[in-house]
C-alpha cells in the first residue's frame, strides 16, 4: 500500500557545498540518500515530493561537517499481509516463482500455485495448466495475495499465493509478443 508521509532526517553536508546553492545541494543529497531505501517501519521510500523545513545547521567538532535536520514529504510503499498486488515474475523454479512489485520481492511457493498448474523445466522454466491455456514464466504478470511478510530493519520480503479467486496470470507475454 502507498502512503504519503512526512519524515525527518539529519543530513550531513560537507563544507565545500556551503554557498549560494546550499539548499539545493541539501535536497539533492537527500534524494540521493533516501529514495529507494527501505525501512522496516515505513516501507520503501519511492519518491520525495517536497521539503517542509530545513533547521539550523550544527557544525560538528573536528570534521567541519554541518548537520541539518530536514523534514520532508515522501511517498512510501509498504506491503501488508492480505494485500493484493500485481507483480512481474522474475524467476521460476521447481520450488515456486519469484516476482517483483516495484521494489518488493515476493516468493510464491509451488503449493500456493493452483494444483492444475505443473512445473515444466527447460531453458524457460514455467508453470502451465494441463491444457496449456495458462502459463507462468519469466516476465509474466500475475495478481497475487500476500500471505506473509518478513520485515527487517532495511528489508521487506513477502510470500504470496495465487491459489484463490481472481488471482493468477493477468497477461501472457508469449501470447502478446
Amino acid at each position: 500500500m502507498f502512503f504519503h508521509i512526512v519524515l525527518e532526517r539529519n543530513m550531513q553536508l560537507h563544507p565545500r557545498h556551503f554557498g549560494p546553492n546550499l539548499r539545493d545541494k541539501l535536497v539533492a543529497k537527500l534524494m540521493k540518500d533516501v529514495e529507494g531505501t527501505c525501512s522496516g517501519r515505513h516501507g520503501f521510500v519511492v519518491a520525495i515530493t517536497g521539503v517542509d523545513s530545513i533547521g539550523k545547521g550544527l557544525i560538528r567538532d573536528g570534521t567541519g561537517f554541518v548537520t541539518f535536520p530536514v523534514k520532508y514529504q515522501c511517498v512510501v510503499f509498504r506491503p501488508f499481509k492480505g494485500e493484493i498486488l500485481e507483480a512481474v515474475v522474475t524467476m521460476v523454479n521447481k520450488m515456486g516463482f519469484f516476482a517483483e512489485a516495484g521494489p518488493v520481492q515476493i516468493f510464491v511457493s509451488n503449493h500456493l500455485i493452483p494444483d492444475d498448474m505443473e512445473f515444466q523445466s527447460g531453458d524457460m522454466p514455467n508453470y502451465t495448466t494441463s491444457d496449456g491455456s495458462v502459463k507462468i514464466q519469466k516476465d509474466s504478470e500475475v495478481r497475487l495475495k500476500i500471505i506473509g511478510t518478513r520485515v527487517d530493519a532495511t528489508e521487506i520480503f513477502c510470500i504470496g499465493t495465487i491459489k484463490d479467486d481472481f488471482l493468477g496470470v493477468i497477461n501472457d507475454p508469449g501470447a502478446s509478443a
Partner: protein
Amino acid sequence: MSVEPFNRLVKLAARAFYDDIAMKGDNQPKTGRSDNRGMAVVVLDALTRRQWVREEDLAKDLKLHSKQLRRTLRFFEEEKLITRDHRKETAKGAKVYSAAIAATSDGQPVGREGEEKIKLHTHSYCCLDYAQIYDVVRYRLHRMKKKLKDELDNRNTVQEYICPDCGRRYNALDALRLISPDDEFFHCEKCNSELVAESDKLAAEEMGDGDDNARRRRREKLKDMLQKMEVQLKPLMEQLSRVKDLSVPEFGGLQAWEARASAAARANGDSAANDLSKASQGQGYGGTPMPFLGETRVEVALSGVEVKEEDSKADAGANSMKVLPPWMIKQGMNLTKEQRGEVKQESKIDSGLSAPMSDDKKSKVNEKEDEKQIQDEYVKAYYAAILRRQQEQEEAAKRQQKELENKISALNDVIDTPNDRQVGIKSKRDVYEREDGVEWEEAPTAGNTSETYKLNDLNVEAEASGDDEDEIDWEEG
C-alpha cells in the same frame, strides 16, 4: 409474499447458530441459574410470529426481563438478523403502534394502551430483517466452508523447508537467501545440501510447534468437521435454496409499517383505528390494501364496511347477503353469463349493493358535500349500473325470445339498444316504450329482488332507475 418459508429459515438458523449462545451480562457471575442458553432461539421464534413489536411487549410476552431481552436483541442486531428502531413517544404515539398491532395480529392480546401514559418515553421496536437474514446466513455458511477448506488445502500457510542433512529448518520467507545460482532448488546455507519442502505444514499460529501426529490429527479433524457441517446444516442449506427465488417479506421501517397497518385497520372498520384518525371512512374504500396477512380478507371487509355504514337504509335482504365488491361482481358476471341461475343470484347481490348506495349518495350530497366521498360513491354506483344494465339487456333479450318471438322487428331494436343506451337516457326511454313498458320495466327489479317477476318494492325500482340516470349523467360530465 409468503413469510412461512422465511420463518422456517430463521428457525433453522437459530437452532444451527444461536442454540448455545449464552446472553450474560459483563458483571454477572456464571451460575446455573443465569445460564440462559437457548433463549436466543426462543426470542427469534417469537419474532417470527410478529412483525414490528415493541420490545417491552415482547419481554412481557416471553416473561423475560426487559434488560435481558434487550441484550439479546442487541446481539441479534449486531448479527444483522433484526432491525431496531428507537423513538421518543407520548402515550398517543404508543397508541398508533397498538392500533397497528391490533390490525395485524388478528386478535392476539398485544396492545396495552393503558400502561403507556407517561409522556415521552423512549421505546424500542424490533423486527426481523428477512432479506438480510437470508444474506447473513448464506455468508456465514460460505465463510465456514471456506475457512475449513482453506486450511485443508494449506492455503495461506507458509511453506517450510528442511535440510535432510543437518536438519536445519527454513521457510518460504527465507527463499531469497536459499536460491542457488546453479539449479532450481533451494540449498542449505550451512551445508549447501538440497532442501526438501515439508508437506502438510499448517499455519503456524494454528499449530504451534506441533509434531507430525498433531498435524495429522488436526487434518482429520478438519475433514470431519467439514463433513459434519455438510450433513448437519443440510436442512438449512435446503431451506436457503427453497427461498432463493421467493420474494422476501418486507415490512419496511417502523413508521411506514405503522402507517400501512393503521390504514388497513381503518379500512377494516376497526374501532381503535377509527379513533385515531378523523380521516373519513369513505376514504377507506380506496385506501391502501394491506400488503400482508391476507389481502382477500381485507377486500371483503371493505365492502362490508359500506353495508354497515348504511344499514339503516339498506333493506334486510341486502345485509344478510354476502356482499362482494363491485369489481368482483363484474368479473363473476362475465364468467357466468351463460348460466341463468347464477346471473339471477348475482343480480340479487347487485341490487342489495346499488340500492342503498344511491340512497346513501343522495343523502351525502345533501348533507356533507364531501367531494371525495361522492366520487367514490359514484364509482361504485357506476359499476353497479353497468352490471345492472348488462343484466337488463340479457333479461330483455331472453324475455323477448320467449314472449315476442314473432315480433322480429322489436327484437332487433332491443339488440340495438346497447349502443343507443350508451349515449343517453333518451334512447333508454325509447326502449322502455317499445317494449310496452310496465312489464318490461319490472323485469330487472323483479328479477333482482325476488324469485317471481312481480314487483314487490316500488321504492327499490325507483332508486334503481334513478341510479341509472345518475350514472349516465356522471359519465357524460
